[in-house]
């Protein structure tokens, strides 16, 4: 998976580079719009992460020129949380946008969504350690024992299991399970995870659902 980051802020581009390399992407970084345009047009990337405010040539101009020749998916990063920025970006052909301050996890989730697009193979069975999930029958077992889950608990478990090994932030979970796409003061996800954990992990010695403090939750057999 090849990725281009066009971002002039050195700290931002440094951590994005490092983080995304660690996520298994091959990452190129451009520090300004002109280099960014050059790289984006010369090479084939799977996704381009493009800052709006750039020296030399701004992100929207880079995007417009790119779109005249290529359909590479683009995520825009904008610091100005203004409606016209988003509208302009989406009109110019951006596939998604993130408003600074954004969380790294959210960026990863969006990148995955963009690269996964189009090759969504339906899965019926999921397996994490001794946990088995039947997505069609909406049933789950651990060690052969049926877990009595409510509909929402099952939805949460399925969401985590589909992305096993990936850290899911509370925001992403709220969106996947409840279709709620706003930050709220409510600790709904925390409370729901606590309930799921009581049924999923508490009776068993091996824990599968892990809390990553400050980031979110991950389902994996460690």
């Amino acid at each position: 998976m090849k990725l281009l980051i066009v971002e002039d802020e050195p700290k931002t581009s440094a951590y994005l580079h490092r983080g995304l390399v660690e996520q298994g992407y091959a990452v190129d970084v451009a520090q300004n719009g002109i280099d960014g345009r050059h790289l984006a047009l010369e090479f084939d990337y799977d996704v381009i992460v493009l800052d709006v405010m750039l020296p030399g040539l701004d992100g929207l101009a880079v995007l417009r020129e790119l779109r005249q020749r290529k359909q590479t998916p683009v995520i825009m990063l904008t610091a100005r949380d203004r409606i016209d920025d988003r509208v302009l970006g989406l009109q110019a052909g951006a596939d998604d946008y993130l408003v600074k301050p954004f969380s790294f996890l959210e960026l990863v989730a969006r990148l995955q969504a963009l690269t996964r697009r189009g090759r969504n193979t339906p899965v019926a069975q999921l397996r994490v350690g001794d946990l088995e999930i039947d997505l069609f029958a909406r049933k789950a077992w651990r060690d052969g024992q049926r877990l009595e889950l409510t509909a929402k608990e099952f939805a949460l478990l399925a969401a985590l299991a589909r992305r096993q090994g990936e850290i899911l932030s509370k925001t992403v979970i709220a969106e996947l399970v409840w279709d709620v796409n706003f930050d709220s003061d409510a600790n709904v996800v925390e409370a729901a995870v606590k309930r799921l954990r009581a049924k999923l992990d508490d009776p068993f010695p091996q824990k599968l659902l892990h809390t990553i403090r400050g980031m979110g939750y991950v389902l994996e057999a460690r």
Partner: protein
Amino acid sequence: MKLSISRRLALMFAATGFLVFTLLGVVLHGILDRELLRSQRAELKARVDLYTPLIQKNGDPARWHLVQSKLDAAIPGDGRARYWIVGDDPRFRYGETTQGFGAAQGDGYGELELNGSGKPFRTLSRSIGATGERPAVRLVAALDQTPYRETLRVFTIALAGVSLAAMLLVALLGHWIARFGLRPLERLSDEARALSPSKLAQRLHQSTLPPELSELATAFNGALDRLESAYQQLEGFNADVAHELRTPLTNLIGQTQVALSRERGAGDLEEVLQSNLEELERLRAIINDMLFLARADQGLRASNRVEVSLAQEIGRTVDYLEVLLEDAGVQVRVEGDARALVEKSLFGRAVTNLLINAVQHSERGAEIVAEIAPRGDGILVAVHNHGTPIPDEQLPRLFDRFYRLDSARSGSSSNHGLGLAIVRAIATMHGGQVVATSERGVNRFGFTVAA
């Protein structure tokens, strides 16, 4: 081009003056013209009356020279009055008859230009019946109009001159009066000019102003009141923001410094980073909320509005909050329904905040009612819960940013005091308002959306 009020008034005065004096001039001119005509006619009539008896009695050609000499004597040296006697018998005539007054000419007043002289004359002719040898004749008296016309001309010129001068005077006086009359306005603008953000409590003095301006000053002072309170709110808001950001920042700086001041194991450092991340998430949440509020302040309107059943949307939110509600031991009942155009995620966010607010102030086992009802030309969505009565004066302020009933600031990261402010912003984005009441132990918070 914009004219100053005083100049405009001066022009209006001048225009009024022009109108009045022109009218006056026309009327005076008319009166004079008529009077002059009347006096000319009176004179003509007097002259004709004077000589008619003489001619009437005279029917003898031998004595006709008496009439002629009388009339000769009656013509003044400047020739401004003339006489003619015309008739069929040449013996009984007087004056040059080249003027062509035939016997056919009727009696009465007329006008005539004398051959050669170019002078306009006014005439009066009268038939005199036959006596003795004399057939019927006609006596014609003529009066030179020139002096009368001259009088009228001089009068007209004088009238025009005086009128013009008077108009100018009126304009000048008008300008001066206007400036004098507008002096309170100048004072007012001087005062307004002296207003500055550093003296927020300053107001315009109304006591010395005339009633018309006093009203303006009242309105202006009202605007100043609102600005002052907005300004103070903004200042308070800035202080609150700084305060809200200060706590997580203090933690971040402090715990990072502590962590770095010794050699630490990876586990310890990881824990510091995790704790830092929590604080940072808190900062991010605050900043995102503030950006959201700022966008609403800038007049952003909900753009992705779709028509939905509000009860169904509230149901979705209740579904989302189900775990929290169960943990708090609280039931939610939805009453009523209506369809309205809302942006679903914004509406859900507002309802979430209202419900969380209600849950936080409810006791275990309590029931929260979410009410949907038409209100005015919109729809009201309100959440009721039993709770401590809230004083009336605090009710409207509850939707202010960072406003908390208990002025002690809770440090809980789950609630940074923007929840209800966000409800208000969302209401504004939907063309609605917020509502808060506290009656008989039931606190009710809600908002309206345009139907």
